[in-house]
Structure formats: structure tokens, C-alpha cells
């Protein structure tokens, strides 16, 4: 039995051997587990090769055949710069030549290291003017800096003869935004503003097919959009990565806290209504096909410390639109103290409701047919929308014992918008920009569109301060 065997092979007391020689047995047993480390190395190598292969499979082929390679640079290598970089690494035919960030101690190093891993060899710059002086080969520059830097960065890049993709908000001031439109017109270079939903295939499908062609919502009368974000601590940075005060001042920041949390400061960013709301309010205007005629808003700093937060953490807005079909009231709210329900836009017409979001996880596209609307069979057959999810109102009612009031509307049929984006959210918009640079596409968000959006959104902060309804004149949106 095993027990007996064990008894016969009792080992000498471990470590109680006292003085003895290092013999063959010691060496063999001592090294006996080293091969496990080799095996680990082999397995890890396999894992890395697999990761690399999947990465290359999802990333489109680099400079595949007829794709003209573009030399590009990134200004602003922070969180958003990273998001855009991740998306651009999946787009074929791009060659990163330069990265520029004033946080040389951290952001710049990180993004350069990541790009090197993908076999790009970008030069690193702190000063964007030095970059523009030295990098003559650049075709396009992608800008993801704080809002108050967008105008100077964009204008100088355009004047240096580069095409520009600039993150939204286009600028924190209308003067800044106007200078960008003017520079794009003067130089004839392309300027795409980063309202990336404009290139999202689901939004395009809803706009072109469901709203314009099938007119599934009938007459849109009300809109409700929200971005609910959970409480978040201020961003920090380890002291050893801190930017010297002199450099912070040079680039318009009072201190490291302001540098990290610029979105909350007046003069640097626009607060949550601009950071978050601008994406969704842009969709209202796009889908309705007209700019708002008036805005009223209420907001305030209800929760965060006013010493480190200047903009409003909570904003509720109502826009008026005068569309050719009739007037529309569009509600929007953003709050930053509770993340449940996330973000979505809900368009309600007299024949249907469209609930849509950029998120692939929540509200990724549902459309509801009002029971009084004409049948949607034709559009289901064309594949524009899914077949309806069967309503089991009756049985639910019986189960719960609830008694519906006769005046309650019957629940509408629920259909799904069958368009899924399997790429990073920003990739289609960047792709559209680079296609336009190659002369193969039209920009989905040229500076004029970005400007209209900026006019609509920046007015909200004004309306909060004015505590009254502010009207837009049609000429406010023209340059």
C-alpha cells in the first residue's frame, strides 16, 4: 500500500543534514523545477503571438496595397488622445510621425511607448510649434488637447498646411470656433470636428433609413436626451510625474490639479454640458435638420467642491426647434452624481419612438411603433428594423393582478435597430476624416457643422446665468 511505501522511503529531515557536499543529486533536484520556468516562457510566447495575431486580424492590414500612406501627428496625448490613438492603430495606411504633449513626464512617454510597440517611430515634442517647424512631411494632425487650446492648435496646423481632426468641443469660445472655420476656408485644408456619432453606422442608419426614408417616427414633437455619470474623484498625478510650475504657467494652467481637471474650470473647458451634452445635442440638430430657435436652462454646482469645480455639475435644458413639420421641444439633462441609466437620446414622434445611444451595451437602438401607426412590415422585410418583440401585456396584467386604466395607452411594439459597431466608437469618424484626406469621402462633421453645435451648446451656460429664455437668430449659426 502507499502507506507502507511511504514508510520505506522516509526522507532525511530537511535542512537538518548538517555539513555535507553538494552532490549530483543536489544539483539535479535543485534544478528540477527550472524547466517549468522554460515552459512558462514558451506558453507566454504563445500567448503573445496569439494576442499579436488577433490584434492584426482586428486591425485592418497596414497600408494594404492601394491605400496611400498618410503621415500623421497627435497633439494631446491624454485620455482622449489615447482613445483616438487606439482607434487609429486599427486604421490602415497611417504612419505616426510625431506626438506632442506638454506632460512630457507621463503622457508623452506613454503614448510614444505604445506607438513603438506597434512599430511606429514617432518623434516626441513638448511644443507644437517646434513640431510643426520640424515635421514637414505631415499630412494630417489629430488634436485632443483641452478645449481652450483647440483654436490656436487647429489654426496653426491648418496654416502649416496640415489637415486637422480636432476633438469636440470645437472651442470654448465662439471667437475661437470662428477663427477655426476661417482658417479652414483660407487654407483650403480639411477640418473635421470630433462629433463622432456623425459617422457612427447606427446613427447614420437611423438618420438616412429610419427617419428620412421610412419616416417611422411620423412627426417628431419631443426629444429627451440624458447623460448620467456617477460620482468621480478628481484626477490626480503622482508627485514624481508633476509638471514644473513654470511649464504649467506657460501653457495656461495654474497648477497640476487644474491641468488634470481642466474640464471643470471656466476659461479652459465648458463643464459636463459641453463635454457630454454637446455630443447628444448635436444629434438633435442633425436629426431634426434645423438649428434650435431658443433655449432655457437651469443648472448649478450642487455637489462638488466649488474650490476645484467652477462649472455646473448638474444641468437641465429645454431647446425649442422650429422644423418644417412643426415645433419641437427637446429636453436634455446631464448630471454627474449618479450613473444609472447612462446616456441615450429618445426621439418621440406621433407614430413611433426611437431610443438610441452610442453605447453598444445600453439603449443601442430600439424603435417602438405606436399602435395607431401604419404597419412597419415593409421596413422589417427590408431589414431596416427587426421583427417586433411580442407584447405580453395581457398576461403580465393577469400575473401581477394590476388593472390598467382604460385611458392608458397600449404599449407599443418594440423593434431593434439592427446595426452594431464592432470597432472603437471613434474609429468610423477618424476613418471618414482620413478617407476625406485621400479624396475618397466627404467630411461628416466639417467646421461649419461643429460651429453650429458649439453655438447651440455654449448658449446653455449663458442661459443658466441669465435665468431666462434666450433666443437664437438664424444668423447666429452662420459665419
Amino acid at each position, binding site marked *: 500500500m502507499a502507506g507502507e511505501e511511504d514508510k520505506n522511503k522516509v526522507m532525511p529531515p530537511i535542512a537538518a543534514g548538517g555539513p555535507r557536499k553538494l552532490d549530483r543529486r543536489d544539483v539535479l533536484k535543485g*534544478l528540477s*523545477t527550472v524547466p517549468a520556468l522554460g515552459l512558462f516562457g514558451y506558453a*507566454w510566447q504563445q500567448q503573445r503571438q496569439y494576442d499579436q495575431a488577433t490584434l492584426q486580424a482586428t486591425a485592418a492590414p497596414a497600408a494594404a496595397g492601394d491605400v496611400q500612406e498618410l503621415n500623421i501627428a497627435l497633439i494631446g496625448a491624454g485620455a482622449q488622445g489615447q482613445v483616438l490613438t487606439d482607434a487609429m492603430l486599427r486604421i490602415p495606411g497611417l504612419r505616426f510621425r510625431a506626438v506632442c504633449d506638454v506632460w512630457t513626464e507621463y503622457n508623452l512617454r506613454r503614448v510614444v511607448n505604445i506607438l513603438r510597440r506597434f512599430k511606429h517611430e514617432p518623434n516626441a515634442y513638448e511644443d507644437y510649434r517646434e513640431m510643426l517647424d520640424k515635421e514637414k512631411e505631415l499630412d494630417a494632425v489629430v488634436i485632443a488637447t483641452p478645449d481652450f487650446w483647440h483654436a490656436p492648435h487647429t489654426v496653426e496646423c491648418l496654416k502649416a498646411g496640415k489637415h486637422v481632426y480636432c476633438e469636440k468641443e470645437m472651442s470654448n469660445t465662439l471667437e475661437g470656433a470662428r477663427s477655426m472655420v476661417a482658417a479652414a476656408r483660407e487654407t483650403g485644408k480639411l477640418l473635421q470636428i470630433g462629433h463622432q456619432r456623425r459617422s457612427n453606422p447606427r446613427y447614420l442608419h437611423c438618420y438616412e433609413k429610419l427617419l428620412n426614408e421610412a419616416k417611422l417616427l411620423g412627426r417628431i414633437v419631443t426629444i429627451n436626451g440624458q447623460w448620467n455619470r456617477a460620482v468621480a474623484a478628481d484626477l490626480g498625478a503622482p508627485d514624481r510625474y508633476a509638471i514644473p510650475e513654470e511649464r504649467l504657467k506657460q501653457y495656461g494652467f495654474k497648477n497640476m490639479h487644474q491641468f488634470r481637471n481642466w474640464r471643470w474650470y471656466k476659461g479652459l473647458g465648458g463643464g459636463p454640458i459641453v463635454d457630454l451634452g454637446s455630443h447628444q445635442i448635436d444629434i438633435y440638430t442633425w436629426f431634426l435638420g434645423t438649428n434650435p430657435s431658443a433655449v432655457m436652462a437651469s443648472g448649478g454646482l450642487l455637489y462638488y467642491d466649488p474650490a476645484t469645480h467652477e462649472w455646473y455639475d448638474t444641468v437641465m435644458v429645454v431647446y425649442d426647434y422650429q422644423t418644417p413639420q412643426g415645433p419641437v421641444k427637446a429636453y436634455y439633462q446631464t448630471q454627474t452624481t449618479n450613473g444609472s441609466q447612462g446616456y441615450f437620446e429618445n426621439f418621440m414622434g406621433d407614430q413611433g419612438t426611437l431610443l438610441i445611444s452610442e453605447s453598444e451595451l445600453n439603449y443601442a437602438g430600439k424603435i417602438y411603433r405606436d399602435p395607431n401607426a401604419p404597419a412597419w412590415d415593409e421596413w422589417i422585410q427590408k431589414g431596416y428594423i427587426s421583427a417586433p418583440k411580442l407584447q405580453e401585456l395581457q398576461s403580465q396584467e393577469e400575473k401581477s393582478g394590476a388593472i390598467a386604466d382604460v385611458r392608458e395607452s397600449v404599449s407599443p411594439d418594440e423593434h431593434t435597430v439592427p446595426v452594431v459597431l464592432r470597432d472603437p466608437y471613434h474609429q468610423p469618424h477618424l476613418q471618414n476624416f482620413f478617407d476625406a484626406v485621400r479624396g475618397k469621402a466627404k467630411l461628416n462633421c466639417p467646421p461649419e457643422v461643429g460651429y453650429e453645435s458649439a453655438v447651440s451648446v455654449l448658449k446653455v451656460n449663458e442661459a443658466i446665468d441669465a435665468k431666462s429664455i434666450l433666443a437664437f437668430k438664424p444668423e447666429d449659426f452662420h459665419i
Partner: protein
Amino acid sequence: MEGATFSRSAMIAITVMRVLVGWHFMYEGIAKLTSSSWSAAGYLRQARGPAAGFFRWLAAQPNLLAYADQITMWGLTIVGALLILGLFTRLSALAGIGFLVLFYAANPPFVGYFYSLPSEGSYLIVNKQLVELGALLVIMVTGSGKYAGLDRIVHALITRKPAPAVVSPAR
């Protein structure tokens, strides 16, 4: 445990266990090192249980967090490699236990706690971290590296030459 005796098969089994635990530690460390954006912050912010306050406080200190991240990534990798090799086995097992105590304390599966992070099994007080901790205890007290591991060579080298006998010619 000095002087305790173990059967050959028991020592082989413990060595196998040591290599497995070491492998797991090492890959946990390397996976974090090779990820461009890994940080303990998310795990710390989700902390529950009696020590949650401490872990959340830690997550909010960028300086300390940066050190904690480095210590975790490198610590796991090094502990894992040492366990596989059986080098400084007791010390590395102790360090591994230290990590596991912290991981366990941050998210203990106590009665009445429900985690939003998905877990792959069903746990009541004992989870896999605690089981791994138990394995490291066995590894530590048996000094398994001295049976099969570099510790055996190190130990033999250190104790190879008998200490010179004290000669006392005066007497």
C-alpha cells in the same frame, strides 16, 4: 518544521503545487506589466468589508497608488518566478501570502456581500485566494525549495564546508 520528515511522494506533490502557484503568480504579474493601462485603482475602489475604507483611501492617493501598482506588478512576477525555481522559497511564500491577504481583505466573500464584479464560482468566506494562501502556507513551512529547487543548491553551497573545528592547542 525543522527536522520534520516527509515522504518522497509528499515532497513531490508539494513541489508540483509550488510550481503551479508560482506559475499563477508570475502570469498575474506579467499580464499586468504588459498591459499599458493596468492599475489597482479599480479593484481598490470596489473594496468591501472591514478594510474597505483603507483601500478606497489608497486608491485616492496618486503617489501611493503608483507605488502600490509597481509593487503589485513586480511583486507578483518575482514571487512567481522564485516559487517556480524554489529559490528563497520561504521568503517568497511569505510575500505571496502577504499579497493574498491584501487581495482577500479588499473583497472578502463574507455573508451578505454581493459584488458587481463577476466571480467565476460560488464562495462563502473561503474563496480561491484563501485556498491559494493555504497552499503557500504549506509551501512555506515545508521549505519545499530545499527538496526540489534552487534552495537545495544554495543550501548545499552554504553548508558545504564543515566549520573548522575549534582547536585549542593551549590545552
